[in-house]
């Protein structure tokens, strides 16, 4: 059996993390193909609904990536994202989901290498954790 390859959905803020992914691209910094980027205008735009739907859809990990605190293009969107993630994590904990499956990360525009590194690390972390209990193929 081949090694388990986790799938990751990353909601990336247009102004920083998505731009950082672009930088990783233009700098040809390779990272695992397990991640799918979904561009949003602000991490504060990511609704708990989107994260839960991503988990329902079978993603093994969901990442919300925004600007560093203080750098938000919309002043405080990232703080709101942080609040959403904190609250949602509590729910997911009760549901028995491992904390790591929802990750909040601040990545600035210039941090292309950090973006790539983050994805690498996250893939490793999720490999250790194994498939999400909500993965489609597990549902009978």
């Amino acid at each position: 059996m081949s090694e388990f390859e986790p799938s990751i959905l990353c909601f990336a803020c247009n102004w920083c993390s998505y731009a950082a992914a672009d930088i990783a691209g233009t700098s040809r910094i390779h990272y695992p193909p397990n991640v799918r980027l979904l561009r949003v205008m602000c991490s504060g735009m990511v609704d708990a609904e989107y994260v839960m739907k991503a988990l329902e859809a079978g993603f093994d990990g969901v990442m919300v990536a925004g600007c560093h605190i203080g750098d938000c293009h919309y002043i405080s969107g990232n703080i709101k994202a942080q609040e959403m993630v904190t609250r949602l994590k509590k729910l997911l904990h009760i549901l028995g989901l491992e904390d790591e499956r929802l990750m909040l990360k601040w990545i600035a525009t210039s941090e292309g290498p950090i973006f790539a590194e983050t994805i690498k690390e996250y893939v490793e972390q999720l490999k250790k954790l194994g498939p999400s209990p909500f993965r489609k193929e597990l549902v009978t």
Partner: protein
Amino acid sequence: MSLEDIIQETKTFYCLDCGKCTGLCPVSRYNPAYSPRVMLENALFGFQDDLTYNHDLFSCLTCYACSSKCPGDVDYPLFIQKARALALDAGQHGDCAHSGTVQSLARLMSNPGVSQNRLEWLSDGLRISTQSDTMFFVGCAPYFEHIFDFDSGAIDAVKASLKILNHCGIEPVVLPNERCCGHDMLWTGDVETFRRLAEHNAAIIKEAGVKKIIFSCPEGYRTFKEDYPKYVDIDCELQHISEFLADRIAENGLDFSEVKRKVTYHDPCRLGRHLGIYEQPRKVIAALPGIELVEMEHNKEESLCCGTSAFVNCDSCSKQIRVDRLLEAKATGADTLITSCPKCQIHFRCAMTNKGEEKGPDVEIEVMDLVNLVANALGDGHNE
């Protein structure tokens, strides 16, 4: 299930087109475009798309105000329940409130791989066991604690219920991997998820070997009592905690401290019109020394719905229904509005969280679950 089957099952063809339902419908009062009668008519004419693609299909509160007075004995809420399943097949769904969290949780919970941490609230000397014949069904309260940006009070009601049971010498079984009862799934047309949840619950309850299940949530109670039998086998006695309390008080009385409150009681639709339990909660309240119970203009069979059901289509109409009900409660002069349903409590409390500058009418009143009222009167100050 086809539209034809639904018409048969809910006896829609008995509809006399009298419009009594629309006259009684709390939604129609604020949303004149919505009419149960027209809904039925469209169904009878076979206009399936007019039914399934109608956004207002999800506005019905399934409160039974209509059917309780229907001269043709049409089961309109059941018709809505089935029609929603049809709509869902066509990719139509209502507008889920609170980011659809409640629905997502139920779907995720229906997964067999789930192993929850749902008992972390247990503390404060609350006693449960694995041996008892009696089980307490916790429901979604542990989740409710973290869904809303206001205090839902749901987990407090669960704690109060356990305190009451402990006080009565019962250390109930509380299951660590209990699932959502599926009520909201069933009533929003997701029958498949509902079935899976019911199967999970039936299996773990069977494994626990209990003989009786007590509920503080009328939705769970109704679902187990009326809906589960169509899908699974639950061989247990089922009781709402207000029934349990009324029995206890009648048998040997309970020692209550004085409660200096003037209260009014809101009948939850599931407990009231769905299951006909009106008197037990009132008897429990009456047993509290010093308390004064006043009735709202609409009470018991005529009671008004709290305004939202299954966390869908919570809209301006829903808000108006809630505001009206709260104003009605305030008009009695009561200082506390007692209900016996965590959802009613959530919807009322939500209606009071106005953060804008324009707040609308003043609807502030203390809203409390019956079990909290009782637990506080049991005196050892646990929930005070």
